[in-house]
Each structure stands twice: as structure tokens, then as C-alpha cells.
């Protein structure tokens, strides 16, 4: 009834090519932005920020990044944890080396450094494909974690081998360290999340994104019609690693504050982000958000239900969580390979015709 194109006349090219051509979608998008920017920062507290909103925003960026590589360009990567570690350590080194420079610049630079590392590890993708490449990216995962563990220069020779985020502020508002307030950390992450989503959305519907998708659908055919596979694959690796690096920097500096590399950025992190985009939807920006939200929410929900209501021991709930996540992955791949995003698309299609489907 509300969700349809009828009566929504577009008179300029700009209107015709906008991201949300349907009025209902557009207003929903503005409403979400309004709530995220103007309502949430005023009602947020530490519990909500640390257990739900910060991980959601940060993982959403990582999921967008990985989705560009896996969902749009078809190059499966299991090195997400390693690339997030690059972002985190780059951010740490920049923060301690140049304390006076704004955190915005540090995070963006950390992303850029990760992009460079990503391109380096993306080079083999020109020769190898499919799960051969997936295994090759495991090399990045294990090598990078080892590197940050073994060379004290990366953690400034601290005795514990950990990196700790020093206190930094943006325009006088503290955003890292233990004195940061919930709303400030939230707002800082939100800016990067919105920025990532807008950039990713526009990249993927432009010529770059179309080249990625051509490579994904069939690389030889794409090459024949004039897509340069070298440039397409390496730009996908660069852009994807940039976002993953930004999320790694935020994950360390804003969310955790102190990081031990093997624990925070191990192989499980790579799988977590991969699961987010499988459940959320491969090749969809909305899916990245949906998957991140789902997998951030699931453990919290299970803990509330299992530990707080039923009084089960935490280890049983943790094992149950493994079972549920594994079963969901298989279920989604069998029943709906395009994830939550596809369910959403189907729902919208139905809404369009509702209440007269014929």
C-alpha cells in the first residue's frame, strides 16, 4: 500500500539514479539515519555501547569490506583477522608516534596501510582461484599474526606484548582510553560506518563495482570483454582491505582499548566476519549490516536466555552457540544462499503488490 513506485515521478537524472529510488525506502533510510545520529547518542549507556552498538558498527565496516572482496569480486578470503590486525597495529604505531594528529587521520591512514598490505597478499589471486586462493589468504592470516607477535617494534617493546590505546581526543572530546564516554565512542564509530556504507554502495554500483561483478561471474569472459583482471582484482583487494583496516583500527582503539594479537585477531575472527556476510547476504551492503547485527546479537541473546533466565553454565551456552551458528550457516546456504538480504528483497517484492497480489 505504501511501498510502490506509482506516483513517484522522477524528473531529473540525479533523481533517477539515486540509491533509494522508492519514496518509502528513502524515508526509511532517513529515519534510520536520524535515529542513529540524533536519538541514540543521547540515550546510550556503557552497557549498550560496549555489548551491542560498538561491535555492530565496527563489524559492519569489516563485513562491508569483506563483502566487496567475496560478495562482489568473488575472491574468497580467510585473512580478515590478519588484515584487521594490520589496521590495529598501524593505528597504534601512528597514535604513539604522532600524538598530536587527529584520530580521524590515524584511522584513515591505518586503512591505507592495510590496503597496501592487502594488495600485496592479493597478488597471488591473479594466478589462483577459488579455495586455492582461500587457503593462500590463510598464509596472510598466520604470517601477520606471527609477525605482530614476534617483532617487539610493533608493540613498542612493551613487557606484556599487548598494545594499549593511549588517551586521545577529537575536538576536545575524549574518545579512546578508559575515560571515553559511551556516546563519544559511538559517534566516532558511527561516522566511519556511515562513510564506509556510502562509499561502498556507490563504488559497487559504478563502473568499478561492475567490473568486480563481471570478474566474479566469470573471469575469463570478463577478460575477453575488456575488463582488466589485474586492476579489478587488486582494486577489490585494496578497497576491501581499506575497510577491514579501518574496522581493525576502531576495534582496537575505540572498542577494546587493549589487544593481544593472537586472541583478538585470530582465525576465528576471519570466520566470524565471513559468517556475517554469508548469513547477511553475499553481494549486498544491507546484508553486511544485517549479518553483523545478527551475529553480534546472537551471543548476547543466548547469554540472556541461557545464563540469566535458565541458569545454565556459561560453557554449555558457548558450545550451544557454536552448534547454532554452524547449523544456521548450513541452513542459509541450503535454503537461502543470498542470506537475509534476499529475504528482505522478497519481502519488499511482496509489499509492492500487497494487498492485491494479482
Amino acid at each position, binding site marked *: 500500500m505504501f511501498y510502490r513506485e506509482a506516483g513517484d515521478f522522477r524528473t531529473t537524472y540525479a533523481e533517477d539514479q539515486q540509491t533509494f529510488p522508492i519514496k518509502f525506502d528513502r524515508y526509511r533510510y532517513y529515519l534510520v539515519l536520524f535515529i542513529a545520529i540524533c536519538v541514540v547518542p543521547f540515550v546510550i549507556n556503557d552497557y549498550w555501547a560496549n555489548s551491542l552498538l560498538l561491535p555492530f558498527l565496527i563489524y559492519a565496516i569489516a563485513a562491508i569490506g569483506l563483502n566487496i572482496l567475496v560478495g562482489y569480486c568473488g575472491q*574468497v578470503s580467510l585473512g580478515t583477522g590478519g588484515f584487521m590486525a594490520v589496521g590495529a597495529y598501524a593505528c597504534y604505531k601512528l597514535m604513539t608516534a604522532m600524538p598530536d594528529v587527529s584520530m580521524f587521520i590515524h584511522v584513515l591512514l591505518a586503512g591505507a596501510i592495510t590496503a597496501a598490505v592487502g594488495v600485496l597478499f592479493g597478488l*597471488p589471486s591473479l*594466478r*589462483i582461484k*577459488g*579455495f*586455492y586462493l*582461500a*587457503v*593462500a589468504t*590463510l*598464509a596472510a592470516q*598466520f*604470517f601477520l*599474526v*606471527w609477525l605482530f*607477535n*614476534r*617483532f617487539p617494534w610493533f608493540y613498542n617493546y612493551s613487557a606484556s606484548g599487548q598494545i594499549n590505546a593511549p588517551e586521545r581526543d577529537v575536538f576536545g572530546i575524549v574518545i579512546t582510553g578508559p575515560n571515553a564516554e559511551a556516546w563519544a565512542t559511538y559517534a566516532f564509530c558511527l561516522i566511519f560506518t556511515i562513510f564506509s556504507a556510502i562509499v561502498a554502495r556507490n563504488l559497487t554500483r559504478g563502473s568499478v563495482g561492475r567490473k568486480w561483478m563481471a570478474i566474479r561471474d*566469470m573471469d*575469463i*569472459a570478463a577478460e*575477453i570483454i575488456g575488463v582488466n583482471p589485474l586492476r579489478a582484482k587488486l582494486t577489490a583487494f585494496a578497497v576491501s582491505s581499506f575497510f577491514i583496516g579501518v574496522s581493525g583500527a576502531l576495534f582496537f582503539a575505540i572498542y577494546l582499548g587493549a589487544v593481544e594479537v593472537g586472541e583478538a585477531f585470530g*582465525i576465528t575472527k576471519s*570466520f566470524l566476519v*565471513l*559468517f556475517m556476510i*554469508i548469513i547477511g547476504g553475499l553481494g549486498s551492503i544491507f546484508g553486511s549490516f544485517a549479518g553483523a547485527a545478527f551475529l553480534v546479537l546472537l551471543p548476547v541473546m543466548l547469554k540472556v536466555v541461557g545464563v540469566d533466565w*535458565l541458569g*545454565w*553454565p556459561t*560453557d*554449555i551456552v558457548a*558450545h*550451544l*552457540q*557454536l*552448534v*547454532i*551458528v*554452524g*547449523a*544456521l*550457516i*548450513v541452513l542459509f*546456504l*541450503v535454503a537461502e*544462499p543470498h542470506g537475509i538480504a534476499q529475504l528482505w528483497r522478497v519481502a519488499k517484492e511482496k509489499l509492492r503488490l500487497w494487498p492485491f497480489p494479482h
Partner: protein
Amino acid sequence: MPEQLAYTIEVFLNGLMAGVLYALVALGFVLIYKASGIFNYAQGVMALFAAMTLVGIQNGQVPFAHLINAIFGTDVHKFGWTVHSFLAILLTVIVMIALAWAVQKFVFKHLVGQEPIILFMATIGLAYFLEGVADLMWGSELKALNVCAADGVCLPQGLNMWIDETTFNAFGYGFFIDNLDIVASIVAAILVIGLVMFAQYTKQGRAMRAVADDHQAALSVGVSLNFIWVLVWSLAGFVALVAGIMWGAKSGVQFSLSLIALKALPVLMLGGFTSIPGAIVGGLIIGVGEKLFEFLIGAPFLGGATENWFAYMLALLFLVFRPQGLFGEKIIERV
């Protein structure tokens, strides 16, 4: 003989032994990949699951004891008996066959004809699922595993005195070689010969190779794909059990056991996904390579622990020059 050389040879031999164990896991991958084109990431977790089930049955643990206790408020842990190793192995094999059937029935039957990468991701999901089930069933604490044929006749542990003495007398330096590794090598050799004989000379083995060659042609001459796939998953489960016993006896049954699957991946990339001899040779190369690299370059110059990534880097470099692996079939692509 100079000492450095003696050390190097010892490291080389130990690498060979480690390589045999990698090859054992890699074998399971090759079996499934050849017959169904599924790259089974869950192979390592299957080894963990098999080893845990074996220990659980041996010790007479009640399955899902923790979960039952949490739901019903009871306090059950053990049946109060212990099961003889052979019977326990037999029961575990039955569990693995049931698992193979369930995996085929509930997961891969519905994914026939999907892209390989989708199948791969499904096996990652399966790995998580199995790991959770194994922990729920038998508890996640570290367990000791030992398989005994009779009282006192168990899998041997510790260093082999005979080799130590002989080499000491011959070279003036005693080589340290684990008894268990020797047993593992013998078992692996028997397993490989057994599998090759099975594939070459039995009816089911021929059917299996037919399916590996061409699904549709095999189907048209009356081979039941469903049966073959269950068979192959059962065989992989059996190989996983053997690998689980060997690794479990070596370092205890715990979560890290499932990580050997990750180590088996570079082995496969070196050897090629479709070749049983390739899995063996690849395993040996990786085992020897990472031990020698750690000994000669890693520990003195790079701060040690290079074993974590060396295998992947080697496989990565290797693939750039020979994408199909050592023994793999040449990849030909058409539009």
C-alpha cells in the same frame, strides 16, 4: 660425523614423522574431494569428534551429560564402566558412519550442483556445528587418549631406545625418534595401501572411482550416487578416526586437534587435491620443510615459531608457479 649435520638429520627425520601425520589428515580431504568435489574443511573437526567419541566411549561417559544436568537438574556423568579399546573403536566407527549418513542426508544432498565455494563454506558451517556437538556431548576439557589391545599392550610413547642406541654406536650421536611416530608411519602406510586396494579391486571401490570420473556417466550405468557419497564420507570419517587416535595419543584430545585440518590444507595444495600419493608426498615435504626451516632459519634469525605460517607461505609460492599442485590434474578452463 659433525654435530650440526647430525642435528639436521634428526630434525629431518622428525619432520618426516610429522609429515606422515599431516598426510593422514590430508588423505581424508582427498577422498571426499575426488568423489564429490567437496573441499571438506570439517575434516579436522571430524578427527577431533572421532577422538572425543572414542575417549568418551572408552571411559563410559554419558553423552550430553552436561546438557542433561543443566536442563533436568540431575547429576549424571558416567555409566560406571569402561569399554575395551577394540569395541570402543568399533562403536566409534559406527558413530562416524551414522554421521556420514546424516551429513549426506541433511546437508549435501540439498547442495548438489552448487558452486564449489558454496560447498566449501557449508563445510565450514559443518565444522562449527560438529565442534559444538562434540563439546556438548563429551565436555571440552583436555582428555588423555590411549588405545590398548590388552593390559599393558598399548600405543607406545616416548623415545625409541633401539634407534637411540644404534645411531649412538654408529655416529656417536643418538637420534631422538618418538615410538608413536613410528607406529603412526606404519599405520599410515597400511591405510594408504588398504585404500588403494579398496579403490582398485572392490566393486564399491570401482564405483567410487567411476563417480569421481564423471557423476552423470556413473549414474547412467547404475551406480547409486547417494550410496557412494555416504561411503566416501564414512571412509573419510574412518581416516579421521585414525588421525584422531594418532594425534590424540601424541598431544591429548583437545580443541587444537581440529587445527591440524588447517595444516593439511597447504599439504593438499602442494600435492594436488585429487591425488592420494600427492597427499603423502605433500605431507612429507611440508613436515620436513617446516621443521628444517625452523631449525636452520626460523629459530636462529626470525625469533622462532615459524611453523605457524611456513607451510602456507610455501604453498602460496608454490601455487604461483604450478597452480594444480605436484600431482594434480592440469586445470583447463573454457568460457
